[in-house]
């Protein structure tokens, strides 16, 4: 039986729905000993800013029940150094590269970043990270405000033909409302969810276990929240969704697709099983064969409720 595993995000065609999520796959080179990178549908870069960023003080991570907290603070070398030192390896993988970007201070930074990325032929898409909880001095995220979300996407849309993905925060009262704004403003796809705000405390010294205090929760602990949000957004907007949050294996990836995700992002699981992305891609194919489903697109949003 022939099975079709390819999916599309706007004009971006992926050979399979498995995407390495931003900030959890380095710049891919770190993983080359653990899997055949070509088996991935796409790779999202660690979020890039215009200037290099140091990020937050250590400790930056701690384990929590079935999950982890992180406050890396968007440490990255900045776009230009990325282009020189990290992009060449990513290009050689032949896998579609999704460039995740964020602005540090002014939303205008997004426009400068996008203008530069427009010139990079191999950048298959741009992911606007308007949902990173770990940038100091920002207690409100763009993706917590429907109007601000609309405004920035609309401005970026005006200056780029690249496939535009918007990454949403779960730390909102209604993720559907934000998703609608993103859709109206011209985003081609949505990625959700970024980490959930969280805290963990060392009771011996009464300090937060992660130096920054508040951090972002990821891993299996957040999966039910993420599946629910995928389902909500699937019902609210027509855009393709990259669903993520606690995917550890094929079964959890399938949950997201059935809830309405066109593709799935693998995050924290990469830290634990660096080859898991390729395993899930193979696992999805086996699931289709076993259940005699000819095309994975038939699964998307097939939840019976």
């Amino acid at each position, binding site marked *: 039986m022939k099975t079709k595993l390819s999916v599309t995000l706007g004009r971006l065609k992926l050979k399979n729905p498995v995407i390495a999520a931003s900030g959890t796959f380095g710049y891919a080179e770190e993983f080359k000993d*653990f899997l055949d990178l070509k088996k991935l549908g796409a790779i999202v870069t660690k979020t890039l800013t215009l200037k290099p960023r140091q990020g937050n003080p*250590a400790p*930056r991570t701690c384990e929590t029940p079935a999950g982890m907290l*992180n406050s890396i603070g968007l440490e990255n070398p900045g776009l230009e150094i990325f282009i020189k030192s990290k992009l060449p390896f990513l290009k050689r993988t032949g896998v579609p590269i999704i460039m995740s970007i964020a602005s540090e201070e002014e939303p205008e930074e997004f426009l400068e970043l996008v203008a530069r990325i427009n010139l990079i032929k191999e950048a298959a898409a741009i992911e606007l990270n308007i949902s990173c909880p770990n940038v100091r001095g920002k207690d409100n995220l763009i993706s917590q405000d429907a109007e601000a979300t609309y405004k920035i996407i609309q401005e970026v849309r005006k200056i780029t033909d690249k496939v535009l993905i918007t990454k949403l925060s779960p730390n909102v009262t209604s993720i559907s409302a934000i998703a609608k704004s993103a859709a109206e403003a011209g985003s081609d796809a949505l990625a959700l969810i970024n980490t959930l705000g969280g805290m963990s405390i060392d009771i011996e010294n009464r300090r937060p276990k992660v130096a920054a205090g508040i951090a972002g929760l990821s891993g299996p602990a957040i999966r039910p929240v993420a599946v629910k949000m995928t389902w909500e957004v699937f019902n609210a907007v027509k855009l393709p969704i990259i669903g993520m949050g606690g995917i550890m294996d094929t079964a959890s990836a399938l949950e997201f697709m059935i809830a309405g995700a066109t593709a799935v992002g693998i995050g924290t699981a990469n*830290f634990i099983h*660096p080859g898991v992305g390729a395993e899930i891609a193979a696992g999805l194919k086996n699931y289709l064969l076993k259940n005699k489903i000819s095309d994975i697109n038939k699964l998307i949003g097939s939840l019976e409720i």
Partner: protein
Amino acid sequence: MKNFQLQAKILAQTKIKNSYWRCTLRAAPIARLARPGQFVNIKISAGLTPLLRRPFSIHGISGDKLTLLYEVVGQGTQILAQKKAGESLDIIGPLGNGFELKSARPALIVAGGMGAAPLLFLATKVKTLVLVGAKTKEQLLCVQEFKKSGCRVKISTDDGSAGFKGRVSELLKHNLAGYNTIYACGPKPMLKAVAEVAKKYKLPAQLSLEEHMACGIGACLGCVVKTKDGLRRVCKEGPVFLAEDLIW
């Protein structure tokens, strides 16, 4: 250097004393490549608890076997200590840079507490004077093993229950004469004190650091330390750093 992920069979699991354990694994490709100062990252249980891998220094190598020395400090190490010979562990390694062995000789080794773990492997290559420090006599580690590997050993305890009474960094000051390099591993305050001694006496020191890490392979950017050249990852550019490069 190439990394491997493999199922390593536990060949032996022995309690040394108190909460200290030694575990021997069969891990041929890792054992073949490993250098002193490198570590492995272990998925202690197949399920979600603990979720992340736990890093452990390579304590010794013999043929295709690799030995770890660890202390039970929390959930992960508790579960590890219950694993029996015959069971397997999913391990990744060899990770990190390891000690630079071509440094100026003669060199001197300073082990504080659990810091003995990577230093015994080093001592088998650099047979020299080893200063072993701990809070109490009960917590001294590997004194016999260092001797067996051909090293001379001097001891310090904070409470004076064995050897020199005081910090191992104090003992270091009294034993520097004639040495050109210091290798050290131990708790952060001890390493800082060693760095100060090294600076005062203008000796290069290679320090093996610990920091919380999620991935161990350089991807998560969790385990950074401050250096003169900016932040560096303990798992990748470390765990061994030159004392003069670190900002405390």
